[in-house]
């Protein structure tokens, strides 16, 4: 009797694990497809040179969009720049998105499908 219930529990767990394998593999495949086509969204942790690199635009275009002089080796995240300039970080991101759009870069939808880090 005990062995039969163990068999049922193990079989159910086995089916769940197989289902999980296929679901995560499918999601990985979907993200692999997006990897080729989707532009990176702008996040408050990114620095201006980082955003310029991911969107393939010169950094000075983005600096001028938020009213700053370009700085060599600038690693400040947008959040820190917003705090220094006493401006909402969302406003800086909107300005950068507009600059990217006028430079010919279409920004992606804000939500990408799928989960986050384990």
């Amino acid at each position, binding site marked *: 009797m005990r*062995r039969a219930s*163990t*068999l049922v529990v*193990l*079989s159910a*767990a*086995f089916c769940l*694990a*197989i289902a*999980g*394998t296929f679901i*995560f*593999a499918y*999601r*990985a495949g979907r*993200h*692999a497809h*997006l*990897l080729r086509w*989707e532009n*990176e*969204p702008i*996040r*408050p*942790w*990114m*620095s201006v*040179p*980082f955003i310029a*690199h*991911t*969107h*393939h635009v010169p950094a000075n275009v983005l600096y001028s969009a938020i009213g700053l002089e370009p700085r060599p080796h600038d*690693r*400040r*995240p947008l*959040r*820190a720049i917003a705090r220094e300039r006493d401006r909402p970080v969302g406003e800086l991101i909107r300005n950068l998105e507009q600059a990217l759009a006028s430079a010919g870069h279409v920004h992606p939808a804000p939500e*990408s499908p*799928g*989960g*986050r*880090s*384990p």
Partner: protein
Amino acid sequence: MREQLLAALSQYGSPVLFGVTAVAAIGLPLPVTLLLVVTGSLVAQGVIPLWVAIAAASAGAISGDQIGYIVGRWGGTALLARFSGALGGAGKLAAAEAHARRWGGPGVFFTRWLATPLGSVINLSSGIAEYPWIRFVLWDVLGEVLGAVIYILLGRVFSDRVLALNDLLSNFTWAMVALLVALWLGWKLWGLRRSTRPLP
């Protein structure tokens, strides 16, 4: 938390990478894969040298793994001795320890870079099973350096797609974990079926 860690990595570089990988190896659920691929992007941008990034990530993770192993070896053994009755008796525990010693090396190696969510549990269980420390360090160093090289180089290659790459790698890692669990359960089910089959 994730945003703050990424901002700190972007601003301060390898010391942050070292700290985060060490704390995550102890068992805190931090987004290490994302930090490694962002580091790869910073390497591609010339912000951090490649060898410094790999050394910081590997050294941090190896240090955290040692702490997990030590906690398991000294704290875990005392706890097990106290609760061995509830866990099936000393005989079952001895069998589990023998199993962990036999499969410990590959278990340590593959959870460093492939089935990463299981890494901190394997550190503890290796300590509890008194898996030889020298062998643990050897497999640990091999696995952690390989993991750092893989994720940082992927981030370097896809340096303009780090968020999408992280989503891909996270789902791939969980698929691997689910597959390992399915294989283990399948093996258990096979054993159970064979033992319940009536004799001819």
